[in-house]
């Protein structure tokens, strides 16, 4: 995927020069290994700062909310599905966007890499084709990228963008036979008490820094419920009940909307797998409504639509 960089620069330069877009949103190479920084480019002469590799695991759709310009934006499969969701939810207009599609084969799980080198400091991690070469002061290790993918990427079924104006390369084959909900099924099989213990332990390290919420393109409310004070829905200390309330409610707000992009987990400073919450809701949306978020502009999400002919009894 690293070879996309040149193509991205070429496209961004062209779009900015010919006035198709006023700004272009992509990534620039990070200052620390396995981190790239989202960047907004206005000047066609600056496009050489754009960069692409397997460490672009944030969700750029997050940066669209409330922008008014004509925007060029990079979009992988999941990012494009969030853009679709943003359009459906009236957070951005389709005609404001020029979507540059990236066929994606997955992002690297920086924590897994760190774990695999025994927690040692990583001084560089460079992608070479399908491999990641990781170096430290006294070691060098080569990883097959497909072995160290973020867990959401490993089970991704929509690697190609669903809504694009232009692709940087031909689509990649979609993964066959993935089992996206195996971990959810194991939680579903637990006794209620075990489940509670599982989730309590899952979030026990939470700092309430809200990186998960803020990295998520679905969280665009002008005032989040945790920040409201009249009434105050949830306490602001690190009391476990309040922390649990935050995680539950955040997850429910994502029901039928989450694309499992993994940004929430990627950004967590203490490594919480909060996708354990959202994935259950994704599974329910798929099983109950045959719905995966953001695949089409033609249909509204199941939880924000009312139809008199709904076959479920509860709605009548």
């Amino acid at each position, binding site marked *: 995927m690293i070879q996309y960089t040149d193509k991205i620069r070429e496209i961004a330069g062209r779009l900015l020069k010919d006035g198709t877009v006023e700004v272009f949103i992509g990534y620039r190479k990070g200052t620390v290994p396995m981190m790239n920084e989202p960047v907004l480019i206005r000047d066609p002469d600056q496009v050489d700062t754009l960069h692409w590799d397997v460490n672009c695991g944030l969700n750029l759709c997050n940066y669209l909310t409330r922008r008014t310009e004509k925007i060029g934006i990079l979009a992988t499969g999941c990012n494009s599905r969030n853009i679709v969701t943003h359009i459906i939810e009236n957070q951005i207009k389709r005609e404001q966007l020029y979507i540059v599609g990236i066929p994606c084969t997955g992002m690297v799980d920086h924590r897994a890499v760190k774990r695999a080198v025994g927690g040692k400091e990583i001084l560089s991690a460079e992608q070479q084709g399908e491999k990641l070469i990781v170096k430290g002061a006294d070691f060098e290790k080569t990883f097959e990228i497909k072995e160290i993918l973020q867990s959401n990427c490993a089970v991704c079924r929509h690697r190609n963008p669903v809504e694009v104006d232009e692709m940087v390369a031909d689509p990649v084959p979609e993964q066959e036979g993935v089992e996206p909900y195996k971990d959810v099924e194991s939680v579903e099989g637990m006794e209620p008490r075990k489940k509670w213990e599982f989730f309590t332990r899952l979030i026990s390290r939470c700092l309430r820094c809200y990186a998960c919420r803020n990295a998520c393109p679905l969280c665009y409310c002008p005032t989040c419920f945790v920040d409201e004070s009249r009434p105050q829905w949830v306490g602001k*200390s690190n009391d476990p009940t309040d922390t649990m309330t935050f995680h539950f409610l955040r997850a429910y707000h994502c029901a039928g909307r989450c694309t499992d992009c993994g940004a929430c987990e990627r950004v967590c400073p203490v490594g919480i797998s909060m996708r354990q919450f959202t994935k259950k809701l994704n599974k329910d949306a798929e099983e109950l409504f045959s719905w995966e978020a953001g695949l089409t502009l033609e249909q509204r999400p199941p939880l924000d639509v009312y139809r008199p002919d709904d076959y479920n009894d509860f709605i009548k």
Partner: protein
Amino acid sequence: MANKVFSKDAWLEALGGLKEHYRVFLPLKDGDFFTYKPIEEAKKIHFDYDNTRLSPKGLIFPQSERMFEFSLDTQDPEANILKEAPKDDSPRAIVGVRPCDAHAVGLVRRNFDNPEYRDPWWVKHVEAATYVGLGCNAPCATCFCKSVGGGPFNEEGLDAMMVDLGDRFLVRALTEKGEEFLSRVQGGEAADEEVLKEARELAQKVTDEMPDTVPTGRLKDLPVMALFEAPFWEEVAFACLNCGTCTYLCPTCWCFDIQDEVYKTEGIRLRNWDSCMFPLFTLHGSGHNPRDQKFQRVRQRFMHKLKYYVDKYGDGVQCSGCGRCVQFCPVNIDIRRVCGLMDAYEPGA
């Protein structure tokens, strides 16, 4: 001041024997990272971490701390009277503190313990603490303590310092508290001149080899309004998520918010860490928010650490160079880069 040298096994055993004198906290492995925990929770102690994910500031300035308790029961003669909530200020030893985190205590002291204001709880918690440092034989690539007035073997803020000499630890007392701590540690031998020399040479070598990467020299002379209005803030702030990672992981961020929580007729007054990255931080009761734009909040964090603090106290930046925000900012906003932009800024250019 006393110096003792311990075999590594003897040192671990000695720490275990301190329970009657101190509550001992030290970095313990918690999943993928290290965090300060009581020694009672230790399955294994290994002083081989780069640093802890969260700084030890939470041991002195907890993320949530009960300040007062009160009753709202009208039958209670003491209804509506704030009473100080009990706090544990028994002696505590914080062992294995990296020099950057100890240096940070001094930076934070200017806020919590100064001629104008004295925060009783912060002061008592610090007074109860003995800081036993661990010199950094191998500073990380993200560390820049040397650029901000510290160093990998800087002793400021520490009561004693451990130096890792391979199979042994040299432990040197630096203050009276450290002297007392060392006198209570069982075992070990007095360090001879050879060991002290070895440690001195190690510290010198590591300090000399550490690059001085972050320029701060011009910050104090640049006009504050010019920096405030500098053109780079929007670019610096673009990627920011306005999460609290940088501020919560930072050993020098001290801001807090005060909240009352009530259940039936009982209430508590708490203080919680707050973050200038959150819009709520500056939201007025009127609904007006003087920092309602993301770039304003990002600018505030950097201006506070790298300019306002510099101007107010005239003794360097409010950053100890631990590099946590550099490593863990989810979108890679790098304070070293921002400091460089600020320091190199030419107003009007």
